[in-house]
């Protein structure tokens, strides 16, 4: 009963039938030795009695069938106990009728004399005389001869089911017909084969057996088996030693040897031992792996062997018993051999001796291998693994995301810093304005731009306070956010710094929609454009300078002619004045003639004055003026200026001016410069034209109502093909001493007057230069 409960307990924990023998063994290891003391034994006897009492009560009620189990040895032998327990379990589970199971220990290992046997037989007859067993099961080979000899003493002709009987014993006994059972043939050959497979390199073989009766039988079996094996070893038989001597010799076995342990029921001094216990102590000291043909040793440190499982023997014996109880004639039930033999190994021992699992024969039962949770609960485990994996993935993803976010944040920060730095380096201040909160954010550089103190609060008013009063309106509009969403505005304003310096700042503002079309944030940049502005002013100044220089250079070219233009009136004036003097010197001066002379002087002086005036205009530096210019007058006055030059160059000039007043808005000096330039070009182009053909025609036409065309036509060489398209480029010239700026300037000037300048070749030869100017409607009284 106690055994059962222990077994069950272990069954529950280990979840495997295969491990049960070991656990029972373990139980005996722990309690076995102590069990020899009276206290434990008393307890078991007490439980056994209680069990018997229960069965007795039961049989009275339902006439139970009786089974008597006879153990050959005492209760310390695991093999018989295992068989008994398995058989009992099977019987109780499978019997259709109530059963009474009794058990007795014959203890034949220690008591071998015949007197003891007959006394035990007497005891059993006394004990079971009233309650005759229906079947006797013998456990352990020694119990079978006993029952054969004393069956009739105990229960005449009772059917017997034996277990753990070697074929030799079975054959020797020549059993009566109603005795059947399980023959156990220990296959040492196969155990040795296992050892050979696991240790293919091993060359030495040690065989251990004791000096008991069974031990001696094993000795001869072993010698015979080893001799029959194909593989030959250097064999050492450790037989008939004292326990201590054996231990000593085993300790010195080389590491790569095979140790075959059989049984050790007794040493050479006749001391009894429990073979399983000996197996444990041998395994503890042996450097080489141990193999054995007994299942009970497995778990006590040996590697394993080809063994019979005692449970299977017990179960099979119980089945035979049930058949007999059911009325089957025992004589018809043939004895069975080895119902459950198999290769069995202890995984822990294999690992301890570094043996390869892959070397095991097929269908080997590997015991004590840590069963993985996987094999037991694949579903739960896979689910768990899945969950853990998912969680890991999620955690990893979160970590990655966190890292990315950190990196992105870092990048953002870096980018932000870079942008701020770049903006500051480019003299740009960044700002944003939240209209709802009326808050302004701006980079520190804005302070520098607006000359604000280090501790001053950056606000819209602070910025506006620095703006030049004339530009305040523009600045306010820019910063006020009166813009429509997605609209941008630019205004250039002047900033007055605390030290009085004025700087130009360009305010760029852009309004971002907040959704729903409402303007939300207003943002933008401040750029210091002082240098740009001063550069622009510088360029404008330089352009005026260049224009002036060009005029001066043109006039320089014309200087002779222009001098002539002034000289003529001066000549007339001088001659008239001197004529008057001569007339006055006469006795009766001709006053009419003198008056004429003086009038001429006045006229010629005016004429000279006009030339000087025109010259002064051309020579003067100055800003571009916006005045009404009469285009026809402009042409005429220019032609007058060129009169002498034309004569000097033998060029005929013709004017064809439309009889209308063309007024255009602009600078007469600059426009005259354009005309002068074009006519000078025309003259230069005719340097190699035969004198008789030298001709310039200047026309004005108001073909379209809004524009007046001024056309200068010559009979020169025309525009050379390779120059076409480049004539307006700066510094492009075909003249030997030209600067290449004349036409560039003309084009600039005409464009500044909203006009157009074109230069084409005339089909009849020569070139035509046309510039068009917008017509200003003549004002009344001005025309």
């Amino acid at each position, binding site marked *: 009963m106690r055994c059962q409960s222990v077994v069950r307990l272990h069954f529950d924990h280990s979840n495997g039938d295969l491990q049960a023998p070991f656990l029972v063994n373990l139980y005996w290891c722990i309690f076995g030795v102590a069990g020899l003391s009276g206290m434990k034994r008393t307890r078991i006897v007490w439980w056994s009695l209680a069990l018997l009492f229960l069965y007795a009560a039961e049989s009275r009620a339902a006439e139970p069938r009786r089974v008597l189990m006879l153990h050959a040895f005492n209760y310390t032998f695991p093999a018989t106990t295992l068989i008994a327990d398995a058989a009992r379990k099977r019987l109780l589970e499978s019997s259709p009728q109530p059963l009474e199971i009794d058990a007795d220990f014959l203890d034949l290992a220690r008591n071998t004399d015949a007197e003891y046997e007959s006394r035990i037989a007497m005891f059993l007859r006394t004990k079971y005389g009233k309650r005759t067993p229906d079947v006797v099961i013998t456990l352990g080979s020694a119990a079978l001869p006993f029952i054969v000899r004393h069956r009739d003493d105990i229960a005449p002709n009772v059917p017997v089911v034996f277990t753990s009987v070697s074929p030799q014993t079975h054959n020797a006994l020549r059993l009566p017909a109603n005795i059947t059972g399980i023959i156990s043939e220990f296959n040492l050959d196969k155990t040795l084969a296992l050892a050979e497979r696991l240790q293919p390199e091993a060359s030495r073989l040690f065989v251990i057996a004791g000096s008991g009766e069974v031990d001696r039988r094993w000795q001869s079996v072993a010698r015979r088996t080893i001799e029959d094996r194909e593989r030959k070893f250097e064999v050492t038989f450790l037989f008939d030693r004292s326990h201590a001597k054996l231990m000593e010799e085993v300790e010195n076995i080389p590491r790569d040897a095979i140790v075959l342990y059989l049984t050790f029921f007794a040493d050479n001094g006749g001391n009894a031992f429990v073979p399983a216990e000996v197996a444990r102590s041998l395994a503890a000291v042996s450097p080489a792996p141990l193999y054995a043909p007994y299942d009970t040793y497995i778990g006590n440190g040996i590697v394993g062997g080809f063994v019979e499982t005692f449970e299977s023997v017990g179960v099979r014996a119980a089945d035979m018993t049930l058949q007999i109880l059911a009325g089957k004639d025992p004589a018809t039930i043939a004895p069975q051999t080895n119902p459950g033999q198999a290769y069995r190994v202890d995984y822990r021992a294999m690992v301890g001796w570094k043996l390869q699992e892959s070397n095991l024969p097929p269908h080997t039962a590997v015991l004590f291998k840590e069963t993985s949770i996987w094999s037991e609960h694949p579903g739960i485990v896979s689910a768990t693994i899945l969950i853990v994996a998912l969680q890991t993935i999620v955690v990893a993803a979160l970590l990655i995301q966190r890292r990315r976010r950190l990196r992105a944040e870092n990048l953002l920060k870096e980018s932000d810093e870079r942008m701020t730095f770049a903006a500051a380096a480019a003299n740009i201040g960044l700002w944003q304005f939240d209209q709802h909160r009326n808050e302004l954010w701006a980079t520190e550089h804005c302070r520098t731009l607006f000359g604000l103190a280090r501790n001053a609060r950056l606000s819209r008013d602070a910025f506006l306070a620095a703006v030049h009063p004339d530009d305040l309106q523009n600045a306010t509009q820019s910063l006020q956010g009166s813009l429509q969403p997605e609209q941008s505005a630019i205004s250039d304003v002047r900033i007055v710094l605390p030290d009085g310096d004025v700087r130009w700042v360009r305010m760029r503002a852009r309004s971002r929609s907040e959704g729903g079309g409402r303007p939300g944030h207003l943002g933008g940049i401040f750029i210091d454009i002082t240098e740009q502005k001063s550069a622009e002013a510088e360029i404008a100044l330089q352009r005026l300078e260049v224009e002036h220089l060009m005029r001066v250079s043109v006039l320089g070219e014309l200087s002779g002619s222009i001098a002539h233009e002034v*000289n*003529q009136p001066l*000549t007339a004036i*001088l*001659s008239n004045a001197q004529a008057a003097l001569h007339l006055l010197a006469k006795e009766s001066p001709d006053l009419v003639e003198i008056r004429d*002379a003086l009038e*001429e002087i006045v006229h010629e002086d005016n004429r000279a004055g006009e030339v000087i005036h025109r010259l002064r205009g051309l020579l003067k530096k100055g800003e571009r003026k916006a005045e009404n210019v009469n285009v026809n007058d402009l042409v005429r006055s220019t032609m007058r200026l060129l009169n002498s030059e034309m*004569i000097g160059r033998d060029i005929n000039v013709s004017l064809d001016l439309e009889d209308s007043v063309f007024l255009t808005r602009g600078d007469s000096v600059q426009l005259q410069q354009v005309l002068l330039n074009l006519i000078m070009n025309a003259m230069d182009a005719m340097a190699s034209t035969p004198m008789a053909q030298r001709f310039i025609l200047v026309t004005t036409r108001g073909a379209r109502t809004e524009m007046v065309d001024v056309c200068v036509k010559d009979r020169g060489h025309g525009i050379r093909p390779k120059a076409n398209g480049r004539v307006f480029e700066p510094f492009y010239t075909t003249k030997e001493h030209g600067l290449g700026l004349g036409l560039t300037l003309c084009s600039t000037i005409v464009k500044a007057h909203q006009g157009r300048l074109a230069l084409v070749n005339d089909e009849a030869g020569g070139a035509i230069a046309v510039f068009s100017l917008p017509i200003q409607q003549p004002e009344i009284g001005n025309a």
Partner: protein
Amino acid sequence: MMEKFTVYLVDDDPGVLKALSRLLSAKGYDVKPYSSPQIFLEEHDVAVPGCAVLDVSMPGLDGLEIQRVLTAASGYHRPVVFITGKGDIPTSVRAMRAGAIDFLTKPVKDKDLFEALSRAEGRDAESRRLHSEMESVQTKVSSLTPREREVLTHVVAGRLNKQIAGDLGTVEKTIKVHRSRMMEKLGIRTVADLVRMTQKLNLSK
């Protein structure tokens, strides 16, 4: 002087033309003003004593060309005074080489102009006198017989009568007759005068 000294004034600038002619008239000159060189050339009379005052730079035909045309037409050197607004050296050199009296720069001072005109007047008179003288010599030479002309050539070459007779294949006496007749026809006494006369003729040719 049979006729009054006339000043031909050519300038394309009407103001200048008017002023200069007024000045010259006031001084007592006969002035013929022309604003166009072509008209001047058409109306010009070599026979009339006088002087041309020409503007150098004029459209169509400039002063230097007028001077050339004038000389080419008659062989008579009409004195020319140039006036110019520009007065560049190459032009003035060319003008002076072509026999210009003066090259005046505008504005022209009356003194300079009058001084140039009086020189021109002298030159014109001289040139006219020389011209008439030449004409009379020419007439005398043309009255000589061919033999006399031959003798003249040899005498001027410095040969003696005897040598001349040898050259011409005649006697010294005959040469003497030709020689005296030739001297008589030409109205010359000495051989030196004869040589001087022939030199003038050669010059004028």
